[in-house]
């Protein structure tokens, strides 16, 4: 392994510009003559717009235009779309209500887009927005899913009279019922997976630009997948054909899923740029981000696990209501269905599983993918159930898991997924050792002497990454294929530019992708640049989410590098006067087998462009190759996290004392970056478990609309992490990569709640386990103990 090759902890190349404040984010981009957009948002969760008077606003200082839903309809700008079709049990298609970029007659959540003011300055646009007179007829709102499906509940979209988007199911109901019928023990559990606000550090932003000379648009936007944005804006929303629409996603300061989607604001900015004849910029402030970024999670679940007399799992039944908010966001329909239920087998050999999921409209912000997207929700269900089943049957939670783990691979679960490879017991055994599990009793006793409650919680998670192959996602309803593309451009002096359809917004692609190139071509890592995020440079790509950039994006680069090497061999053959089949390539040198004749990569690159040696022969000049990679399966990262914590029963304060993470990500390209991803993921998972929760009041106002009330985890909420790895290389891609971006966020919540419930004596504690919630549970535990 070289110092910059695969497996080396190379320092991040991109950090020089990020830590010196030289990143170039969307809000840093300013176009000549730029105007500013301010969105007037609905203060009501549900209301009819009886009239909208923009006269005074249009006359206000600096105002260029005030645009409403009528204008967008008149210009035949299409509505926002949901790109994944889900069918209900009865075969009927999901009920997708119209989602106009500016409200047309009705608003459906607080923050919904009523109108936009374009003005010379942002302050003028905002001042003018206060002059817009909106006559609302306020309608009753519904924010609770159980209320939304009741008879007589306010109807949010006419297409669904019971606010249900779909009643979907997966698995074999009869086989599962049969398993429960013969069960020796059944564990039952009601769970809430709390709603989260993504809170990327960089708020969403967009700059729309129109060039009348070429009739072409440019959109700068905070996107994780600029090509998908262009595709949707072009083919569905109808801004312009793709060759007349360039989408640039420059440096992006965190996404966590929330920047996958195509939102109203960027749609309006790019459309309005032509309308007012000026570039139009919009940057969300933090309050707008809280109200209008797609939120995450928000499930209500009842789950049951059936065990036989030996404590083996024989059946799993899950019923989930998933809040999809007021409109279907871009991929929202898939998150609680195909990204959720197929993971319900966890790491366990469960012969029968049946899951039902109802997608529900409410008068709240749209809900879509957020770090882990469906897999954290599935893992929370499985790992809470498994933990409680172990406790109820008097089994040690670690031994109970070991007994039920899948041991042979490949393993076909009853819920679509075919796990390719893994070694779950190796990860658990390593984690038990690292966490010093055998001495937990002593540590609990020591805490008790100090008046504290100590608990330990396990989470043996599995996830499905890559969000590919295309045929698989297509058969499940995806409107797109989910491959990835790469182009490797070798310059005449042997430096390399890699164009990738993946998008880096914190993942460190500029480093890890360059490591791959450096390793395979035997050239210094500084001779490699990674180009992404611009549809004019990179032809096509599917973007970054679902931990897919390593497993799918790098595999495309790998394949393109194969082609570069193959072409290089042909060039080298001419230079070395040998047959191409006799050329070897190793450590940056092409050589003739069995001889000392060799030529280095840089010289071959030069010869490829000079072409003197093979002019007129059957070989094209140049050295540039592209590839598309579509894998044969999802990848299945898995691992075990163990959380050990101490609770102060007097105050309910939880302090995480030790965190052990043993993950199997397959082959690791850069251990430092992978550890960073694990740390960040756990931080978000602990955030969900202990701190975060979006809360709407009954009228549909977001109570947690700022950091004053929405609790983000901070450094002092988090422990030092003890991170270990096991490795079973993934067989479905050439690098053996599985993906690591979401693991921590998936693993952490059940580990924390299992530890808290262990500490307080098995009281079911809901997330977020705030001091108030933990204090209440601890009080009950103390009283129960006193009663005994």
């Amino acid at each position, binding site marked *: 392994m070289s110092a910059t090759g695969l497996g080396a902890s190379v320092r991040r190349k991109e950090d020089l510009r990020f830590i010196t404040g030289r990143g170039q984010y969307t809000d840093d981009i300013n176009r000549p003559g730029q105007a500013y957009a301010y969105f007037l948002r609905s203060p009501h969760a549900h209301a009819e717009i009886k009239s909208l008077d923009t006269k005074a606003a249009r006359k206000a200082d600096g105002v260029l235009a005030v645009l409403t839903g009528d204008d967008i309809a008149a210009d035949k700008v299409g509505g926002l779309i949901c790109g994944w079709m889900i069918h209900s049990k009865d075969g009927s298609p999901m009920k997708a209500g119209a989602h106009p970029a500016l409200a047309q007659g009705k608003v459906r959540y607080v923050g919904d887009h009523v109108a936009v003011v374009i003005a010379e300055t942002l302050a003028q646009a905002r001042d003018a927005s206060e002059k817009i007179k909106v006559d609302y007829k306020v309608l009753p709102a519904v924010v609770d899913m159980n209320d939304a499906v009741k008879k007589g509940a306010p109807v949010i979209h006419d297409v669904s009279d019971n606010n249900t988007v779909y009643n979907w199911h997966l698995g074999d109901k009869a086989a599962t019922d049969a398993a429960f019928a013969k069960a020796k023990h059944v564990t039952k559990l009601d769970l809430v997976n709390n709603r989260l606000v993504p809170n990327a550090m960089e708020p969403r932003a967009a700059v729309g630009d129109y060039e009348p000379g070429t009739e072409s648009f440019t959109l700068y936007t905070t996107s994780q997948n600029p090509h998908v944005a262009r595709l949707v804006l072009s083919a569905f929303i109808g801004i312009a054909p793709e060759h007349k629409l360039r989408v640039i996603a420059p440096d992006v300061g965190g996404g966590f899923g929330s920047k996958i989607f195509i939102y109203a604001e960027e749609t309006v900015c790019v459309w309005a740029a032509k309308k007012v004849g000026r570039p139009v910029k919009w940057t969300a402030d933090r309050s707008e981000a809280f109200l209008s970024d797609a939120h995450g999670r928000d499930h209500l679940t009842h789950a049951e696990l059936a065990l036989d007399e030996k404590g083996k799992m024989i059946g799993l039944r899950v019923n989930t209501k998933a809040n999809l908010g007021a409109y279907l966001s871009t991929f929202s329909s898939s998150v609680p269905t195909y990204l959720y239920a197929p993971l319900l087998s966890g790491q366990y050999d469960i012969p029968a599983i049946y899951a039902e999921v109802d997608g529900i409209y409410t008068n709240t912000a749209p809900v879509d993918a957020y770090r882990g997207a469906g897999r954290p929700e599935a893992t929370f269900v499985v790992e809470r159930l498994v933990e409680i089943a172990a406790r109820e049957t008097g089994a040690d939670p670690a031994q109970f898991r070991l007994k039920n783990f899948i041991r042979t691979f490949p393993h076909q679960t009853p819920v679509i997924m075919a796990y390719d490879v893994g070694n779950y017991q190796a990860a658990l055994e390593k984690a038990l050792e690292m966490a010093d599990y055998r001495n937990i009793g002593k540590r609990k006793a020591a805490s008790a002497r100090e008046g504290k409650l100590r608990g330990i919680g396990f989470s043996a998670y599995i996830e499905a990454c890559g969000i590919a192959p295309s045929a698989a996602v297509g058969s499940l309803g995806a409107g797109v294929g989910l491959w990835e593309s790469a182009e490797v451009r070798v310059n005449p002096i042997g430096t390399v530019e890699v164009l990738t359809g993946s998008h880096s917004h914190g993942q460190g692609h500029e480093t890890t992708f360059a490591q791959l190139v450096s390793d395979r071509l035997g050239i210094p890592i500084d001779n490699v640049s990674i180009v992404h995020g611009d549809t004019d440079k990179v032809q096509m790509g599917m973007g970054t989410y679902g931990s897919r950039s390593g497993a799918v994006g790098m595999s495309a680069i790998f394949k393109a590098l194969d082609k570069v090497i193959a072409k290089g061999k042909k060039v080298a053959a001419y230079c070395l006067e040998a047959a191409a089949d006799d050329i070897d390539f190793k450590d940056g040198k092409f050589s003739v087998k069995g001889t000392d004749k060799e030529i280095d990569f840089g010289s071959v690159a030069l010869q490829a462009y000079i072409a003197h040696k093979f002019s007129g022969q059957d070989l094209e000049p140049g050295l540039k190759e592209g590839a598309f990679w579509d894998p044969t399966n999802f990848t299945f990262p898995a691992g075990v996290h163990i959380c050990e914590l101490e609770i102060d029963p007097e105050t309910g304060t939880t302090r995480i004392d030790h965190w052990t993470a043993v993950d199997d990500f397959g082959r690791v390209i850069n251990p430092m970056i992978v550890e960073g991803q694990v740390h960040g993921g756990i931080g978000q998972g602990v955030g969900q478990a202990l701190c975060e929760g979006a809360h709407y009041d009954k009228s549909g106002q977001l109570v947690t609309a700022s*950091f*004053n*009330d*929405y609790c*983000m985890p901070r450094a002092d909420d988090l422990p030092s992490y003890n991170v270990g790895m096991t490795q079973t290389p993934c067989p479905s891609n050439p690098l053996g990569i599985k993906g690591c971006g979401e693991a921590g966020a998936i693993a952490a919540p059940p580990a924390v709640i299992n530890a808290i419930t262990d500490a307080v004596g098995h009281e079911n504690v809901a997330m977020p386990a705030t*001091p*108030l919630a933990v*204090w209440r549970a601890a009080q009950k535990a103390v009283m129960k103990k006193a009663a005994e």
Partner: protein
Amino acid sequence: MYQFTYHRVDSARKAANLAEKNEDAKFLAGGMTLLPTMKQRLASPSALIDLNPASEKLAGIEVKGRNVHIGAMTRHYDVANSKDVQEAIPALAELAGMIGDPAVRHRGTIGGSVANNDPAADYPSACLALNATIHTNKRKISADEFFTGLFETALEPGELITKIVFPVPSKAAYMKFPNPASRYAMVGVFVAKKGKDVRVAVTGAGSSGVFRAGKFEAALTAKFHVKALEGVSASAEGLNSDIHADAAYRAHLIGVMARRAVNKANGK
């Protein structure tokens, strides 16, 4: 933010004169509450009178006899790190070091915090428990008279705090249970003993702002020891309930924080 007129003044007198001429003017000290509120368009003063140029006159810490004088424009950071405060009233220095984050502590001022009387702010509890005197450009007001309700004080329009005088206690401690989201006090209890007099002030919990906990004071006046608080509890009546803490939990925390503060004040 709406438009406003911005004035800079280098003395309390000039500030007061300007305030008299501008009815909805606001004094700007550290601006840690006022500026975010204005940015969100929740406040729209016609004018801001920036006191920062007057810092030389209005900031500073002095120990005079058995009193610590702290100028209104003194930053939280300077109180937290003052050797004089750390020696005379260590609990006060510690309290200042727990306010907000480093950026807030370098900008926010004691006068601004006390004048704003946020029900979850830390300083009001210190003023009340230490029996401080708030000096203004017009008069001296005892802490007991000063804090009159949520964001309400005895200050009259145009009246400006110039300094706060804290008598040095024999024992004191502040225990804060922060709101997990905002890190303001969800419950903060300041306990102080001076001679026979024991005062216990509670911030963050009361629906009308900072208040004295009479039952705790009586018990601790009898004996300044944690055992004196056995069986003493705060009533949930009149306490705040929100998504972070209901009144019962806040009442419970008052007891816990009070006991911990007493132990701390006694060096335990």
